[in-house]
């Protein structure tokens, strides 16, 4: 078994640091390092939602403050033992965050910027509530009488131990999340939230989970800080300093790595200490502001990611070389083992529809894209969907996959009406799709792009298995060797095949292909046609939207022609294309 070196380093580092308060050093060292740990907790916990998923929260001060006041009220006014108040601080902060998130994340349009501003507003709202109610009422809360558990020889040492343990736990949580399916999903949300949802990521639940964990950790940090400073006021707690500082620390260190915020927190805490004497908070604020501006402009992805990029470039083979090699080798790809022993056996039962759409309607304001589509897709067939531009083909795919919700009608898949299901549930049930304009997750490697659907699609693999499987799907789609490349380095042909590999890795029962062939050369089209046939032969039902007639006649068992949001004709390709009304829809009326 491989040694997990970062973990060993973390444990060793924490063990060494644990000794510090027992060495009898001046209290200054305990208190200074306490401050470093305090900021590591706040920055790292902030990063769990905001860094990974890209939803920048300016409300971290509110969650921190909720923890401060929970402990202040319980320990300072109700005489609850200090340590018992910390779980309560976590729960109150998490409840506040989840309550806010449940409202804010429900609104589809609340993307990054709006989320940032709303969370900032919460800080001041909470401050108002605390000031106007008996929680504080104005004068502040004294905590000097609170008994501090003796975890080290001195009081400052005890705070040191608490902060160290919390910082260690927080970094472990952040690392665990980054390496879990939750982490992968959050990174996918960062790049393209809608695509992530369609590939099976329960985006709403995952964002809420990350927000809750993030706030709970900040709440505990607040609880400890309340007793550490021993006198808390609303204005001193709910201000702009906490969000400003944690954002700066995380951006500077790197938001895409669990260790980034801890690195940034250590650097900034030391910088602030060195550059400002005790009563020059003004200069400190200006420095923080200036560093933030420079970090955003010059290092938008942080120190750590720049370092990682350089490493990856040294390790990986440049895409161009792989292209050359792939071109030289004769390609006769074999389907992964997964394709051979398919779970869903091919029945070719042409009487039983796998998918039936009845009366599907979808309008965008005045434009009626689908005006009551009826459609059956039978198990094991390849159904071609044709129609002139604007006839509703892509909208149909979007409605079936849950990208859009149909205004009316039913969509029955494998016996269940999925018309009102969220997209991730549809993906999980066994429908996968490709996008007409490929939408890969730009910051994930090619392999992780594929692994994501293997985890969240019908296949439902664990993250480790999914990585191996993803590699084999890349071989199947002739993308082997490109595992560690970023999608931005692929050419159009490869990007289209990546879309396909992603859809296949989900192990769908029904595969929806939205113009996968457009823009490819004739040779590439032939390859793709062979690939789609092999997919069907392995038992997957295929619906494909296409303009390339050659591929349609070569592949489809049946075709459906859409026109102005309605089904105009359906049947065998040759018969349908011979019909006059189909010709009119495509070519217009003859005026001769």
């Amino acid at each position, binding site marked *: 078994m491989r040694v997990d070196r970062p973990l060993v380093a973390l444990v060793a580092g924490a063990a060494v640091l644990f000794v510090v308060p027992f060495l009898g050093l001046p209290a200054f060292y305990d208190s200074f390092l306490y401050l470093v740990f305090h900021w590591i907790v706040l920055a790292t916990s902030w990063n769990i939602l905001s860094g990974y998923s*890209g939803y*920048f929260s300016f409300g971290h001060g509110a969650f921190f403050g909720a923890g401060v006041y929970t402990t202040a009220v319980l320990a300072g006014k109700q005489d609850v033992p200090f340590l018992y108040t910390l779980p309560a601080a976590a729960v109150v902060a998490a409840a506040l965050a989840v309550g806010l998130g449940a*409202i*804010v994340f*429900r*609104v*589809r*349009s*609340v993307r*990054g*910027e*709006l989320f*940032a*501003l*709303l969370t*900032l*507003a*919460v800080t*001041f*709202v909470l*401050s*108002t*509530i605390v*000031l*106007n109610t008996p929680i504080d009422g104005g004068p502040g809360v004294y905590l000097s009488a609170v008994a501090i558990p003796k975890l080290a020889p001195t009081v400052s040492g005890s705070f040191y131990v608490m902060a160290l343990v919390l910082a260690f736990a927080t970094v472990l949580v952040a690392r665990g999340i980054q390496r879990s399916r939750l982490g992968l999903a959050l990174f996918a949300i960062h790049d393209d939230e809608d695509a992530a949802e369609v590939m099976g990521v329960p985006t709403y639940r995952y964002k809420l989970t990350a927000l809750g964990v993030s706030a709970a950790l900040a709440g505990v940090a607040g609880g400890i800080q309340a007793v550490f400073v021993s006198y808390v006021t609303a204005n001193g707690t709910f*201000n*702009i300093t906490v969000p*400003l500082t944690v*954002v*700066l620390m995380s*951006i500077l260190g790197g938001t895409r790595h669990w260790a980034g915020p801890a690195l940034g927190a250590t650097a900034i805490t030391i910088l602030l200490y060195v550059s400002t004497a005790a009563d020059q908070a*003004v*200069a400190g*604020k*200006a420095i*923080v*502001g*200036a*560093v*933030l*501006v420079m970090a*955003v*402009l*010059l290092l*938008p992805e942080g120190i750590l990611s720049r370092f990682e990029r350089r490493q990856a470039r040294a390790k990986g083979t440049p895409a161009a070389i792989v292209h050359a090699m792939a071109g030289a080798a004769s390609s006769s790809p074999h389907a992964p083992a997964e394709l051979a022993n398919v779970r869903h056996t091919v029945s070719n039962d042409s009487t039983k529809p796998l998918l039936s759409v009845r009366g599907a309607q979808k309008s965008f304001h005045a434009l009626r894209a689908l005006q009551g589509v009826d459609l059956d897709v039978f198990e094991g067939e390849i159904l071609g969907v044709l129609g002139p531009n604007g006839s509703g083909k892509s909208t149909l795919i979007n409605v079936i996959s849950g990208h859009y919700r149909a205004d009316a009608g039913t969509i029955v898949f494998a016996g269940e009406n999925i018309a009102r299901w969220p997209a991730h549930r549809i993906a999980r049930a066994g429908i996968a799709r490709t996008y007409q304009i490929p939408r890969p997750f730009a910051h994930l490697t090619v392999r992780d792009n594929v692994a994501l659907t293997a985890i969240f699609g019908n296949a439902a693999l664990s993250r480790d298995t999914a990585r191996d499987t993803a590699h084999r799907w890349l071989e199947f789609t002739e993308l082997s060797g490109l595992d560690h490349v970023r999608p931005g380095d692929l050419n159009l042909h490869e990007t289209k095949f990546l879309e396909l590999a992603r859809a296949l890795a989900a192990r769908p029962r029904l595969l929806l292909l939205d113009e996968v062939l457009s823009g490819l050369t004739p040779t590439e089209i032939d390859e793709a046609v062979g690939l789609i046939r092999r997919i069907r032969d392995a038992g997957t039902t295929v619906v494909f939207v296409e303009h390339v007639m050659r591929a349609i006649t070569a592949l489809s068992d049946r075709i459906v022609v859409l026109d102005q949001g309605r089904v105009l004709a359906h049947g065998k390709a040759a018969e349908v294309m011979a019909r006059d009304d189909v010709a009119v829809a495509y070519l217009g009326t003859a005026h001769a």
Partner: protein
Amino acid sequence: MTFPSATLLAQSALSGVFIGALYGLLGLGLGLTWGLLHIINLAHFGFAFLAAYLCYQLASVHGVDPLATLALIMPLFFVAGVALQFLLERFRVSPLNSLLATFGVTAIIEAAIQGVWTADFRKLESVYAGQKLQIGELFVPIPELMTLLVALVLSFGLWAAMRYTDLGRAMRALAADAPMAAAFGINRSAHAILLSGVCGALAGIAGVCLALGFTLTPSQIYAWIGVVFAAVMLGGLGSALGPLVAGIIIGLSEAITMAFASPSWAPIVSFTLLIVLLLLRPART
């Protein structure tokens, strides 16, 4: 809770309209850069406060008429807006990163203000302060009335300019689809520079109004952010009239809340309105 008298209620409603006008005035420049340039400029608040302190300095220390300070403040903040836009354009920042970078700029401005004028409260004592019109039983303070007039004139003026001039049409075309507008020969960066300069000057004007009516302290910069953003979002991004209308609605709601409950509850009002809006009309924002 006691029921306030009709006069008191009318007087509070009037002050709600006045403060709402200032929300709208601050939101005007903010919403235009957000909606048209896709830059969320938190430094707008920093600029406004810096302008307010400059106005305070010129008026109370050097005895200049507060309105005359506009002759200096408007060109100064036009340049500041242009400089900021130049910086953001140079590094091609995303909307979110523009929020972060201008957050940093605001922190620097706050520190600078605190360094020069300290964190103590400052109040401009001008010839206008304390002057009131009396209409029936209602008192209309002159500085606030001037703010309302300025906000009305600027909002309607920009609305008309956006709607009826070629320059305004070009701005709206750029906001809708910059590459397409560029293909039709519209110079994007020239328009962006002009607009951010105008918005900088608007921040300066808002700052003078701020100095006329309010006590200043550096940390107050952040207190305005939430409510002004609420006005911008309620009013619609890129709209010239929206922020003023929404600002007055928020100001009125706050004033009524203060009259019935306690003044310290006012900060909750705009946030509640915003959440209600998001829940009822999610497509709007």
